[in-house]
């Protein structure tokens, strides 16, 4: 008997597409030009850039500042970027093309920071620490999306679930004066909204985008109403306790990484725990295999005796659980009070992170950090008095989201039956 079976090799268009190769090379050379004219020629020789490597208010895991010569660093970045661009134009990087353009983007950001901080200092560690915190709601939003879309239900109501979660987290947290009960309320409100989304889109087969939009509008109105009617008139109802910073013994002492990742609040730890749990549950358990089969080919799952409807309900409700948790972060983990519309589109950016992360928890957290970092640069640099207006800097995360969603990165492995209601016939 012949044991080996033949398989088909897929050739991809980017391996042969000359136009894509050309465009990427030109983009890389443009980045090099920006570094040259924007930064290198605008920097004085002999200035030094000082990166502070310990976030403010931290006394364990400190390290010394990192001082580099501004101009030489920028020239080095310029040379590497130009080399990448030229190689891309002449030979091409093949499969590594996307990675290379990403690397050039990173050089651009680093070059900008180096130039901006030339002659003064920037607290790089503080920027990274705030990037991690800013990444929390985005990443949790992306996890929420992964859970529901892997089962074939598009959930754009994550934004609304977060908003509702943050409001109820603040309200119940203030009443009970307990962070944990507040968090429970946030999670429950997210789950209730997701149950509504599940009933509308799975049972009544309403278009999932419409159902999600309706929930978003409902949440915005409902939270605004309660906020104006009760929270603002009675400030005692809008003064929840905050989760404290919990250093993890040992790990918190690691220089740079310790203060950023291991001396922070419970939401960051929960984010990492959920990363492992969701990744393992989806890809290594029977439960996950069945859930994914329902998102890929519900009819096949049905013919094998899997309950498509029930599986989808469970997935959407878990998605609401995670979205509610993300909502709780705003009021109980970050700000300490509820403001109208305070989620500011983080739920949608979370969906972008999910797509960017290829519907995988690991990818989602990577994308979440990228968006969080963009956010952090925006807010830090406007404090530093950059020549670029702070309003423009504040747009950075949204601009990056648009570029990512416009398919610059290429299409990923979207679940095949994503967004399609299942009809048993």
């Amino acid at each position, binding site marked *: 008997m012949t044991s080996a*079976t033949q398989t088909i090799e897929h050739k991809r268009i980017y391996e042969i597409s000359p136009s894509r190769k050309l465009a990427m090379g030109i983009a890389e050379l443009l980045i090099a030009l920006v570094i040259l004219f924007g930064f290198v020629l605008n920097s004085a020789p002999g200035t030094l850039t000082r990166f502070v490597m310990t976030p403010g208010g931290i006394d364990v895991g400190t390290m010394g500042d990192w001082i580099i010569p501004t101009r030489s660093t920028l020239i080095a970045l310029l040379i590497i970027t130009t080399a990448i661009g030229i190689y891309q134009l002449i030979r091409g990087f093949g499969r590594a093309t996307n990675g290379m353009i990403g690397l050039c983007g990173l050089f651009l950001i680093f070059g900008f920071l180096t130039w901006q901080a030339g002659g003064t200092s920037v607290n790089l560690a503080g920027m990274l620490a705030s990037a991690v915190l800013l990444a929390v709601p985005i990443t949790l939003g992306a996890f929420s999306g992964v859970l529901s879309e892997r089962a074939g239900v598009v959930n754009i109501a994550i934004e609304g679930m977060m908003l509702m979660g943050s409001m109820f987290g603040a309200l119940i947290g203030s009443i009970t004066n307990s962070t944990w009960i507040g968090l429970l309320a946030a999670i429950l409100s997210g789950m209730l909204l997701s149950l509504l989304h599940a009933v509308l889109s799975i049972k009544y087969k309403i278009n999932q985008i419409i159902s999600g939009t309706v929930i978003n509008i409902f949440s915005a109105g409902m939270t605004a109403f309660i906020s104006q009617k009760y929270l603002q008139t009675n400030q005692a109802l809008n003064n929840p306790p905050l989760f404290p910073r919990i250093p993890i013994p040992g790990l918190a002492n690691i220089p740079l990484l310790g203060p950023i990742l291991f001396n922070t609040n419970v939401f960051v730890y929960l984010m990492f725990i959920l990363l492992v749990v969701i990744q393992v549950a989806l890809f290594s358990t029977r439960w996950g*295999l069945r859930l994914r*089969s329902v998102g890929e*080919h519900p009819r096949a799952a049905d013919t*094998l*005796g899997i309950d498509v409807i029930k599986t989808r309900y469970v997935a959407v409700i878990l998605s609401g659980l995670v979205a509610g948790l993300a909502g709780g972060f705003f009021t109980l983990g970050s700000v300490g009070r509820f403001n109208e519309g305070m989620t500011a589109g983080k739920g949608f950016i979370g969906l972008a992170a999910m797509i960017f992360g290829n519907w995988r928890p690991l990818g989602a957290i990577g994308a979440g950090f990228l968006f969080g970092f963009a956010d952090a640069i925006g807010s830090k640099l406007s404090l530093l008095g950059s020549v670029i207006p702070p309003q423009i800097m504040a747009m950075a995360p949204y601009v990056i989201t648009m570029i990512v969603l416009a398919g610059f990165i290429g299409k990923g492995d979207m679940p095949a039956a994503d967004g399609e209601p299942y009809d048993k016939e």
Partner: protein
Amino acid sequence: MTPILELKGITKQFPGVLANDHIDLSLNKGEILALLGENGAGKSTLMNILYGLYQPDEGEIFINGEKVMISSPTDAIEAGIGMVHQHFMLIPVFTVAENVMLGYESVKYGDFLDREDASKKISEIAETFNLPVNPRDMVRDLPVGVQQKVEIIKLLYREAEILIFDEPTAVLTPQEADELFKIMRSLAEQGKSIIFITHKLREVLDVADRIMVIRLGAVVGETTPDEADKNSLAAMMVGREVSLVVEKEEKTPGDVVISIQDLVVADKFQNIVVDHVSLEVRAGEIVGIAGVQGNGQTELVEAITGLQKSSGGQITLLGEDISRATPRQITELGSAHVPEDRQADGLVLPFPTAENLVLCTYYKEPFSKGVVLQYQTILEHAEKLITDFDIRTPSALTPVSNLSGGNQQKVIIARELSRPIQFLMASQPTRGLDVGSIEYIHKRIVQKRDDGCAVLLVSPELDEIMELSDRIAVMYRGKILAVVNRSAVTKEEVGLMMAGVMPEEDFTAKKKHVVERTF
């Protein structure tokens, strides 16, 4: 001996159709029973009832003499029934092992998948029944023939005793089909009982022990391959005598009408599906593209008709470069398109027949003046085509969704062939049609060719390609492997090429000579 499976008086009524009318069926252990009938005769409905996907209005099911209730696929699986569906129930992004065990998983430590254990069981089944697959391969990377083996392993993994094959050869090359028949035989020898659903006469005669013919939801006869032949089976299926051969005269082709140079097309995942294809079609000839479904034919056709952008190469129609032209520009140059999926791409189903008949021309005189449609003219035009093309419809205002598949296809044929055209792109023009309609549409296509039209025909049915084509291009994994004269090849040779096997040296040399002569 009690039959392993017995159906008694199964009846299923759909709105407006009696899909199954008191059907009785019995299946013995180790037997291959062929269920023969045209599309829409009720074969698939009957099997979906047996598999628990539909509930019958009347009738009973017995397994080993015991009455059973099958109300879901889970019940059917428990009763030992397994089905290889016409459209595979496989998840392309899962591995073979994951697909096979889905719903019946091997687990350890509670709920964790035990892929090792599943792979081991799959390898054992593969060994026993001679179905070579690698449990770790991703299903999307497997050729269709192997995917079908995965489907069969799925049933054996669940220890099914009764195996239903629903039109299993639709996606296979003739060689793959022969291999499948061998597998079916060996399964039957090992005691499995098989129901084989098909509308292809040759297959029934090749593999079945017993043949049951169904027409319009009722059993019209039972026979064996020894007693029957193709003509008698066709007559039983259709209810009248039919001619199975197309008559066509030799013709000398004229000037090149369409020329494709180095065409590259990618699918939405950026996989290259049409890989540097070059081809010419001349006036007055039919070039048939043979190939198993999914080897790039769909994308090639979409690129030619302007429905999809090409990533490289050039298409020239009547001297004009149409690589970047819109479908309307291409149509106006004098080309016609009979699309592969008539309901999705060929017709606007809720529109009346008359409107569907002017979908390419409604904006021009005499069908509209300025922006106003001239309804009287459109109706008169429709009445004329309905008579000319023998479209069976209650009226010109009946929505096409109410017509039968054959008549829907005739609406498209009428719309496309009644225009003055020089190029016809016909993609699976007889897909899913009854023998009578096939006969008619073939005649019309040959007639267009005789009138000097260049015809490019795409079909996964090798018989259709062999009967209609003057030249045959074989497409395999996005490439044209060879272009040969119809008269210079046998069906077996083309079938081999469809599987990617190039003929031996001397054969190629002979063919090359022929190809050079035709150009």
